[in-house]
């Protein structure tokens, strides 16, 4: 199918392993080619409603998100890690492609077990990618990632099996039907909780977030980019599908004054915890990578706010925001990688005077961090705005307060987050450059990795409807179809 094309390229990549000369750029080049091929296949494949196997679905939402994964993956590939870190670029990029394949399969899956397999394919690749360089830090990152990931995978599997036990069906719609017929049962809720835990790990929600700072700091930049962008997007999509399609009835309510047990309430609690922990801990960071990690945790909190509203528009807004967030974070990582290469570390003070050394990167970093902070005219702003307004709209009707407590908390913490983003930007723009450090040249793909997401964020900032409308419509079509 679509992904087989990508798989084919993996083989070629492995073969290209041994070539000396410029193995690195060859690796990047082949990976790019593979991704583009998959994208072409996606575009030109006939929009068939139902494919052969019931394992995979080809609904509109899946198609959009496959494109999203490919796009984010492409940009991630173009974020070059420090050259010294990667000894076998061929293997590295092969693993990258494997991870992307896994993610693509996850997007399309409709069967719970298949979902698990695809997710594990991606995760295992990512564990290896995290530990690829032979540095102690990377090893620590990889180990933590693997341990946490393993536990969460166990949770996920156990939850799935519980659900199967309850519903005798392994598709999401089957689960929904079974639950609709009978009363909500303890195994059902427990299964759901465990699935949530497993997915929560993927998304770095509190209290499943402990791996994130170390992975963001220790792993090579490309890996982190995939983790932060593509993997997170897919994780959210899975969560949305699971909750909206599988368990609409178990939602409960998180509105003020009307709280009822259900995944909406759990998500609300997780959201609050993630936002508070992520934002507060980010304030204390001196390294940009760890800062981005805590920002990831906080952003998961914002996403969960929207999901807690349990409505289709909120979910659509969340999907939009996760894409925007992914673009911004991977762009920021790209610039950070360059600064690391130039100055040796990613501390905030190393960014000083970037506007003089490399105005292009400084302006793009401005775009990325501003979008993360949620300041217009970048895409982060309509994203967050859509999150909050749809969360309110779908939880507060007829003047009842609804989720205002959560939205209020989110708005205030999001505003406070500007502080730590400005801490970086202030050094970039207002401080003078410290001399010293080698000035490596920037590979052209790197420039693309920085420029294209920035451009996308600007365009989406002014015309968010370009992505928001299709996503929302696709989601509603998918929900209606089931």
């Amino acid at each position, binding site marked *: 199918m679509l992904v087989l094309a990508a798989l084919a390229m993996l083989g070629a990549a492995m073969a290209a392993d041994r070539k000396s000369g410029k193995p690195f750029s060859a690796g990047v080049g082949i990976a790019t080619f593979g991704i583009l091929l998959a994208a072409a296949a996606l575009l030109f494949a006939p929009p068939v409603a139902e494919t052969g196997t019931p394992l995979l679905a080809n609904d509109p939402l899946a198609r959009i998100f496959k494109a999203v994964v490919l796009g984010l993956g492409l940009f991630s590939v173009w974020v070059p890690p420090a050259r010294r870190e990667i000894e076998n670029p061929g293997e590295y990029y092969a693993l990258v492609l494997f991870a992307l394949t896994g993610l693509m399969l996850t997007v399309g899956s409709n069967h719970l077990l298949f979902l698990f397999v695809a997710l594990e394919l991606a995760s295992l690749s990512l564990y290896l990618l995290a530990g690829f360089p032979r540095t102690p830090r990377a090893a620590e990152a990889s180990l933590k990632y693997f341990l946490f990931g393993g536990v969460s995978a166990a949770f996920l599997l156990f939850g799935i099996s519980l659900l199967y036990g309850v519903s005798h069906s392994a598709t999401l719609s089957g689960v929904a039907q079974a639950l609709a017929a009978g009363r909500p049962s303890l195994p059902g809720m427990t299964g759901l909780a465990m699935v949530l835990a497993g997915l929560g790990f993927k998304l770095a929600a509190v209290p499943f977030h402990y791996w994130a700072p170390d992975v963001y700091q220790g792993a090579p930049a490309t890996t982190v980019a995939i983790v932060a962008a593509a993997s997170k997007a897919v994780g959210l999509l899975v969560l949305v599908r699971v909750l909206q399609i599988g368990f609409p009835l178990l939602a409960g309510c998180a509105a003020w004054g009307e709280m009822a047990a259900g995944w909406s309430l759990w998500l609300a609690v997780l959201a609050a915890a993630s936002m508070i922990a992520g934002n507060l801990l980010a304030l204390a960071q001196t390294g940009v990578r760890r800062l981005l990690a805590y920002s990831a945790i906080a952003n998961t909190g914002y996403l969960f706010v929207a999901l807690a509203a349990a409505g289709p528009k909120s979910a659509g807004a969340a999907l939009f925001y996760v894409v925007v967030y992914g673009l911004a974070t991977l762009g920021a990582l790209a610039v950070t990688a360059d600064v690391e290469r130039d100055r040796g570390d990613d501390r905030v003070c190393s960014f000083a005077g970037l506007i003089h050394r490399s105005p292009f990167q400084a302006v793009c970093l401005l775009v990325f961090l501003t979008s993360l902070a949620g300041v217009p005219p970048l895409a982060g702003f309509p994203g967050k*705005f859509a999150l909050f307004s749809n969360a309110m709209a779908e939880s507060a009707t007829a003047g009842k307060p609804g989720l205002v407590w959560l939205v209020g908390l989110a708005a205030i913490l999001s505003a406070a987050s500007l502080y730590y983003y400005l801490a970086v930007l202030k050094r970039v723009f*207002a401080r003078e450059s410290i001399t010293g450090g080698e000035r490596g040249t920037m590979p052209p793909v790197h420039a693309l990795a920085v420029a294209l997401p920035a451009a996308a964020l600007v365009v989406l900032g002014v015309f968010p409807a370009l992505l928001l409308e299709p996503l929302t419509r696709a989601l509603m079509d998918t929900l209606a179809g089931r």
Partner: protein
Amino acid sequence: MTPTWTISSAFAGALLVLLPPARMAGSARIIALAASLVGMIAAALSCLARLNHPDAPVWRFDAPWIPCMGIRFHLAADGLSLTLLLLTGLIAVAGVLFSWNVEKRPRAFFAWFLTIIGGVYGVFLSRDAFLLFVCYEIVILPKYMLIAIWGSTNREYGAMKLTMYSIGASALILIGLVAAYAAAGATSFDLLHLAGADYPAAMQAWAFPVLFLGFAVLAGMWPFHTWAPTGHVAAPTAASMLLAGVVMKLGAFGALCVAMPLFEQGLGLWKPLIAGLAVVGIVYGALTALAQKDLKFVIGYSSVSHMGFVLLGLAAANHWGLRGAVLQMISHGVIAGLLFGIAGRVVYERTRTRDLAALRGFDLWRSLPGAAVAFTLATAASMGLPGFSGFVAEISVIVGLWKVYPWLTVGVAIGIIITGAFSLRALQKTCFPARPPADAATAPPLPPLTWPEISAIGLLLAVSLAIGIYPKPWVVLIDDGLRSPLFQSILPLP
């Protein structure tokens, strides 16, 4: 020339200003001047057009933007918006003129400057709450950059304090807006739609103070005003002019056109407190200004005091009060721009000091008489002396206040007197030292006023005088804006 020329000229200018190569960086100021002039002329022509055709339908631009949330790109220019557009244009031109000699990274400076101007134009023209909020937030980051990079005293701290207050207040606005959107049926963000919806009284009781406070922080309401003096002092001249002259008015405009129409019952509940805080702000600002040693701090606190009049007019919530509030917005914008321009550019650039005691040594009345005359007239305007715009605004607010809270007029009278005192103190310490110091003869001669400075001072003074002596066209425009259906619940038609 439609009013959109204001927004587009500002943003286009912001981009164009970055184009010249590094060697010709000085040409950035010419581009900036051209862009701001285009904006000002567009605003002025639109005002004239509206004066000549008062019964024509209001100019409007309405296009869908994010349909799934009911957000439209909706601009409209009634008299109220037009007068504030003109104010922005004036401050933009004057700001560029006063920044004529910026040497450090002029392209970036004017780019940030024009971005703020564009955002401000956008706020004044928006009729959709989302669009208004977008433009409102666009100015936050450029404000930070202008102060942190080109500022003076304590600039990074001042910039961060100002920015965090701004964005914190914006968070409150966001909460209020989203709550209103949800309660109004989540179909549209249009201001009229949101204003027309019926919100339960319990909701209005908490939603109004949240929304109003969000806007009022930026308007410098006591006791949330502490960002203003620090920020204004830290900022470079043009930024101070923008901040005090225009950006603070964004908060007042938002309070007037968003918070008040949306939650009228909430307004009725919280009005007395707002009026009280406003009077406290007037007196407190004036008293604090009286005690300052730094000239810019005096002007900064005087801004807090003057904005108290705006908030007081809003709290009176009747025709005279609102009219006075808008007049004071315009008047104070011009006067603050003038004062910061003179203090920052004319005086500081030459004497390198803003300390009142040190300025005594320069004997400005003899060494720089043009500046002394200009500063005298600006001080007269700031005191609210008749003949200048501040007087018209203050009497309108006081008449409106008599109707609703007569006893507060005592506080206002006291505030006026203390304002006279600190203005005079600043004036006499700066320009007219008690006795020329013994070394007056050896004080270095100061370079005379340059033509950009003279043009800017002349422009702003002329406007203030024009409003003070012939306020009729301005009042006509403002009344035209106040007739909008947005205010119908607050100002019932006779």
